[in-house]
Each structure stands twice: as C-alpha cells, then as structure tokens.
C-alpha cells in the first residue's frame, strides 16, 4: 500500500523512468468523460497492478462500462491521463489499445461464430508461408494457446459448435495471442453455470500467476469476493473508493455502491407504515416459480392495496422474477394463481387478461414506441386489449389521454408530441399512463424511476402511493433501497438469482436491509 504514494510523483514527472518505478501496469488518473448533457465520468482513477485481479463495482449508470471503454479505446477521454507501462497514451481506437497490450472479453462474445476456433484465436496473426497462410502452422499455434488455458478442443471445429463458456475461453486465448498485459473481463460469468465459472476462474488464477493484470466486472457479489484481490467502486460517474477485497466488508461495499443520498421524499414513508389487510385472497400468488439458469424457484404473494418491493442488486433476479410472473419469459417450474384461481402465464396476453400490467426497466427497448405520439402510446395498452377492429372513438381517446397527461403531469402536455423526443421522466409517465388506462389490479413497475429527474421521480412515487391506498396491488423494483423502503410494506430480497427472504419494512431500516441483502445466507448461493 505504501507504494501508492511514492509512485504518484514519479508517474507525473517522468514518463521515461516511470516504467521502472511504477507498480502499475495501467494508471488512469482523473478520467473525465462527457456525453451531451451528462457527465458520465468525473475525475475517476483506476490503478491496475500486474498479477492482480481487480474488480470494478457499481450499479447501472455508475460509469463502469464507460471507464472500460475509455481504457479500451472505444471512447476518447475529455480529461485525465491513461498511462500504460509507464508511458502516457491516447487511444484513438480499440486496435490502439490492443497494440498496447490491453485486451477485452465482452459479455456477449465478440468472436466470429462462423469461423473455426483456430481461425478466431489467430485472426490477424495467421502464420504465413510466403504470401499465403500456412493453416497447419496456424492451427498448431492456436492449439498451443488453447492448451495453455487447459482447453483441449479441436482448433478446426466451428466456434458455434461450442458453449458460451468455451467461446469465452477462446476469446481469452485470443487475448493471449495478442500478448495482453491487461485483460478486461466485462460480465464474463453472466451466462455461465457454476462449473463453467469454476473453469473460468481457474484460467484467471493461472493468468494472474503469470503476471497479467485482470480487470473483472460482475454483478455477482460472491464471485467478486471469490476472485478479486482489489475492488474499485464507482457511483454516478464518480470514484467512491479503492479497497483490498479481503478488508472490505460486504455491507460497506453495498452501501458504497448504492449510496445513501436521502432526498426530499421522506414524507411518503407513510405508505410503508399503512396496514395491509392480508386476510383475503392475494391478487397474485406465485409458488416455486423459476427458470433454469435464470432464477431459482421463488414464492411471491401480493395482496390488494399492498406495495411489495423487490430489493437486490442488478442481476440478482428481481427483473427475471417479474418477467416470469408476467409471462414475458416462460417459467419452467412453479405455478401462479390470480385471486385464488390457477392461471396460465405463458405470454403477456395472459397476464393482461388477468389485469396485470408490467412496465419494463428497459424504457426505450421494451417500453415506448418511439416514433408514435404521446396519445398513441398511452392508448396502446387499451387498444391492444380491445383488438384492432374495435378502434377507440376519438372523443374517448382524447378524454383518456387528457386525463392522464393531467394526472401525471406529462410535459410537454401535447398529445401529438412524438414520444421519442420526450425526456426519460416523461416517457416513464407515458408508460405509467398506458398501464393505468387499462385499469389493472396488479401493477408491476421495474425501475420506474431510474435515470429520471427528481421531480418526475417524486410524481411517480406519489402516484404509486396514491393508487395503492385505493386498493391497487403493486410490485415495485428499484435499485434505490430508500425508495423501496419508503413505498413498500413488504420487501422480498433477492441475490444471485435467488430469493433469499422477505422483510417487513416497518421492522427494518436501510442499514438492516443492506446488511440482509449483503450477508444473509452468505456464500451459499450458486
């Protein structure tokens, strides 16, 4: 640790001699990146040491991928310096970064699945004989690199014939061909099962022993603690801290990731205190609902007038759970009943017929129809229920649209504005309007307040609170735990694709919830 302080002046003053004295293979200092209207990264430092696994942690929008893209030459920095091997560099392309020894393996494997394993490993570095490629030597070389990672697959087999896990290891072999000093692994485990993760970690440990610096990004806390030597935490584009993994308690990490920014919405906490009558049938009861590789079987009940919060980090299974309930994805275990009667939920239509509404976390991709107007977007849910032949009358449509624009404060209050041009918060209000117009009995909101301004956030929370008081059942997902605590009477906690328990929000505070989320059943998750 003492090396930190001694290295700083050396790196700053002399880039020639720094290579000898700097303990870092990559030194990013004061990195600042601006996007139109957004400060994506604000003076962030990242220091990678050879022979170490360094995890980058943070919630969505924290700036993890922006920082990685700055390092790998995808984005140009607006401020700060990147020093690699003691030399200050300005990367203008990913090829630049690769030439400097920085290789990246992305979540979605970026290889050519229609080429052979060997061709992928050696792409651009094929062995030549005169002006032609010596395929025999090329494949032999590929096989050597693959064996180096403990892979004994045939380099002449098609890449697409192998599992994602193997493809990921092939991508790492490719990084080795490029003689990478730094290996960036962005969410490499998100589609791997337990054994495959073990195989990958074995490879990572080997590379670490060979002196490669590894930057690891994952949403799985257990995996991060298993493999990391050091952890850097980002939040909202700023550096929160760098820690040795061994001396960083889980609850401190989670607190740093989520932050504790209390805003002016404390007044709403009355919602969470409201008593809910759970004597009757729940609106929705799910028993053992799950899907292989997505979510372990989980139970959930929601009663009329109740707000159930789902707490958990991104990738914990909170979104996956509600998607299964809604029929957006098909569950392969468990069953669901609505008002005590068994219900089939295999497509969104089934859920909608049972008066369940679901607003996705992916507002642009799965929510708004960007080219259509505010009015068309708002009535889409009702119109879809009625079918194409029974078009809503103009007067009825105008009345509904005017009512919700007013009630939710959509700005601009113009029914003919194209939704794609509205701000995120107003798009979210339009989506909320679309579902409220269908008069649902259960409203499922996945991250309805992410990435929107405080005013819109308050409007949406107030509306949810109001509607639940009138008897609407709500499932509310948010990365902001204060928000969940404020709105929900009951909180289901998920971690690593598993529901780990339920809490009564009257009996738990923020620290208690963070502690539960981080530590309950620690290490047992698969």
């Amino acid at each position: 640790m003492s090396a930190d302080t001694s290295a700083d002046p050396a790196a700053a003053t002399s880039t020639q001699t720094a290579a000898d004295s700097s303990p870092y293979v990559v030194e990013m200092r004061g990195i600042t990146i601006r996007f139109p209207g957004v400060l994506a990264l604000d003076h962030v430092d990242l220091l990678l040491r050879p022979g170490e696994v360094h995890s980058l942690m943070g919630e969505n929008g924290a700036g993890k991928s922006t920082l990685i893209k700055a390092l790998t030459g995808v984005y140009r920095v607006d401020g700060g310096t990147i020093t690699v091997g003691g030399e200050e560099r300005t990367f203008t392309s990913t090829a630049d970064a690769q030439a400097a020894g920085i290789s990246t393996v992305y979540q979605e494997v970026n290889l050519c699945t229609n080429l052979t394993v060997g061709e992928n490993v050696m792409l651009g570095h094929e062995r030549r004989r005169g002006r032609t490629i010596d395929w025999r030597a090329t494949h032999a070389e590929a096989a050597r690199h693959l064996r180096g990672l403990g892979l004994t697959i045939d380099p002449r087999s098609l890449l697409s014939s192998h599992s994602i896990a193997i493809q990921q290891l092939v991508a790492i072999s490719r990084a080795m061909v490029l003689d990478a000093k730094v290996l960036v692994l962005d969410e490499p485990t998100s589609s791997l099962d337990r054994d495959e993760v073990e195989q990958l970690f074995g490879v990572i440990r080997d590379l670490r022993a060979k002196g490669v610096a590894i930057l690891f990004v994952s949403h799985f806390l257990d995996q991060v603690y298993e493999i990391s030597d050091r952890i850097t935490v980002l939040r909202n584009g700023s550096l929160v801290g760098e820690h040795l993994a061994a001396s960083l308690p889980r609850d401190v990490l989670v607190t740093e990731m989520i932050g504790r920014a209390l805003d002016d919405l404390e007044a709403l906490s009355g919602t969470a205190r409201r008593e809910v009558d759970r004597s009757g049938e729940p609106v929705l009861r799910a028993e053992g609902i799950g899907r292989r590789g997505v979510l372990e079987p989980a139970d959930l009940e929601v009663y009329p007038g109740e707000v159930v919060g789902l707490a958990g980090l991104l990738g914990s299974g909170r979104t996956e759970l509600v998607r299964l309930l809604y029929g957006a994805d098909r569950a392969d275990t468990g069953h669901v009943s609505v008002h005590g009667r068994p219900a089939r939920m295999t497509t969104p239509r089934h859920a909608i017929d049972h008066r369940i509404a679901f607003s996705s976390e992916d507002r642009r991709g799965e929510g708004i129809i960007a080219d259509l107007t505010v009015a068309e977007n708002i009535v889409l849910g009702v119109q879809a229920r009625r079918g194409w032949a029974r078009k809503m009358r103009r007067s009825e449509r105008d009345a509904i649209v005017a009512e919700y624009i007013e009630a939710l404060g959509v700005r601009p209050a113009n029914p003919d504005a194209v939704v794609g041009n509205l701000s995120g918060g107003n798009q979210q209000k339009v989506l909320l309007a679309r579902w409220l117009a269908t008069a649902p009995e259960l409203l499922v909101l996945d991250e309805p307040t992410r990435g929107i301004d405080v005013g819109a956030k308050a409007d949406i929370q107030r509306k949810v609170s109001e509607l639940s008081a009138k008897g609407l059942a709500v499932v509310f997902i948010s990365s902001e735990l204060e928000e969940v605590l404020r709105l929900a009477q009951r909180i289901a906690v998920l971690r690593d694709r598993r529901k780990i328990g339920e809490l009564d929000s009257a009996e738990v505070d923020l620290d208690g919830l963070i502690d539960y989320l981080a530590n309950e059943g620690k290490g047992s998750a698969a």
Partner: protein
Amino acid sequence: MTTFWKHRLFWPAAALVALVTVNSIARPRFLSITMRDGELYGALIDILRNSAPLMLVALGMTIVIATRGIDLSVGAIMAVSGAVALTVIDGSDDPGNLGTVLVAVATAIAVALVLGVWNGFLVAVLGIQPIIATLVLMLAGRGVALLITGGFITTVNSDPFSYIASGYLTLVPFALVISVVAVAVIALVERRTALGVLTEAVGINPEASRLAGVRSRGIVWGAYVLSGALAGVAGIVYASNIKAADANAAGLFIELYAILAVVLGGTSLAGGKFSVAGTVIGVLVIQTLESTILFLGVPSAQSPVFFALVVVVVVMVQSKRVRGAFGMVRRPGRDGPTGPPGPSKHEAVTGRRTEVAA
C-alpha cells in the same frame, strides 16, 4: 408560413409533378384526355390503367414493410394466380361464360391467399427472416405455375376475362377501378380501425408491442396474407391483359419495383410508420417514368440504365443528407424541430440490438 415542403409526401409528389411536367413539354398531348364512345382515353389514363398490377402489389408490400418485413414472392404469386385462373377457364366447356370466369378468379385469389398464409406462417410463427421465408416461394412459385400450366403458355379467348384488364366500367377502365377500390379499402381499414397504428407499433418496436399486449403474430401474419391476396389479383389483371398465363414473364421483378415504390413513397425499409398515399405516388412515379422511356424512344437495351438514372436522382433528392449537402435543408440542430427521423433511426438500431440480446 406553413412548411408544406417539410411534409413527408412533398418530395415524392414533387418528383411526380416534375415527371408530368417534362412529359407535357415533350409531348403536348400528354395531359389531354378525350372521350370516345363514352370511354376516356389518353396518356394519363393509360398510365393509370397500366399501373394497376404494380399498385396492388405495392399496397401489400407497404403493409408488410411496415411490420419490418419484406415479401419477395409477390411476382411468383402473380404467376401462380394467372396460371390457376387460365387453367380453370381453359378446362371449362364455356370459356366465354361469366360464371366460369368468376369461378376462375375466385379460385386464383384463394390459391394466392393460401400462399400468403404460408409466407406469414414462416415469418410470424416460425420466426424465419422475411427475406428468406419469402425467397422460398419466389424461387419455387414459378415452378409451381409451370406445373399448373403443364409447361406451356396457356392462352384463352374469353370476353369476360379480357374485360378485367381492357374493359371499361362506364367512363373509366375496369383495371383502374380495381386499383382505386383496393387503395380506398386499405386506406380506410388501416386508418379507420386500429390496425394501422398497431401495425406501426409492431414495426417500430416488436418487443415493446408484445409486452403491451399487442397480438403481433396475427398482425404480421395478416400482412403477408394481404400481400399474397393482392398479388393474386394483380396476377389476374396481368393475365387478362395478355390473355395468357406466362409463368416466366408474369410479375417478373415486380417485387423489386414494388419495394422501390414503397421507398419512393417515403416508407422506411426499417419498418414502422407507413404511408398508403406515399405508395400510390411512388407507383405513379414509376409508371410515368416507364411511359416516358417508351415515348422518348430510348432503345430498349438502354432503358434500364435510363430508368436507373432517374430513380437514383429521385432517391437522392429524398435523402436528408444529400439535401443537407446542397443547402436545401438546414442541418438538424440539437433542439431544432426535425421531428422523428433522428430519434426514430436511433430507436430502430437500439430496438434491434435489444432483440438480439434478449
């Protein structure tokens, strides 16, 4: 001042007006319409009548393209439809009988409908990429048509059948009546019901539409059925015009002209917002251009080059970027009233990505 030139139909309409102007200067009688025996004649009437098959096919194509699809099989379906109709008439004892012709037409349209159902099944149910799914029928369809006619060009002599392409309903050619009725019915059904807006929703963002409860499978399927049926009618009009079923020539390359007409009319190949009026203008531009080429006496070997040159110019005039380069529009500012194209393009891209990732 209203910015009528920002309307999305302005440039297609301008291209049509320009073509008509060139023609009326080159041949003074171009615009004149004369009455003979209570029937209208003239160059414009010919263009409108001859455009009927392309109009029918392009209408179906518009709806298919709005769903993010494409239908390459329309030419082949025209060939099959013509073959079926002619075979029924040829095989009957009384080819001149109106009843025979009605049965023939109904059978042909039914067969075309079934082919559309097949296309829609491949795309909407099996999830095969539209270009591949319809390529199957595009390649196989003409073989089927040849099989039906036994490998010959079936010719018939049937007055009621000839009437479809060359007859007059009081003042106007019957083929023109067919295409006007088709345009009117489709424009009404799409806009007076919610079908149009739901089709656009599915085309713009299929996943969001699915989650909103839109029955997107039925909407996509229906688009291909409609396209097949309209191609069937187009095949009958074509066969009636030449009084024969020519499996090799019927509707040859019409799928490409139809796609061109849709694009000229301002509907994006990326799907989503569509314009029936735009397609009508696009068809008329193509048909007027063909008539112009004929009139100017461009040697037939060179006419495709001439056609291509004009189309390239028209498409370039419609391109925002080209107009921007020539200072015809202001560069879209950050907060300028540029409307949907900017974000919509972005959305189309991100929408696709989401689909792949899901």
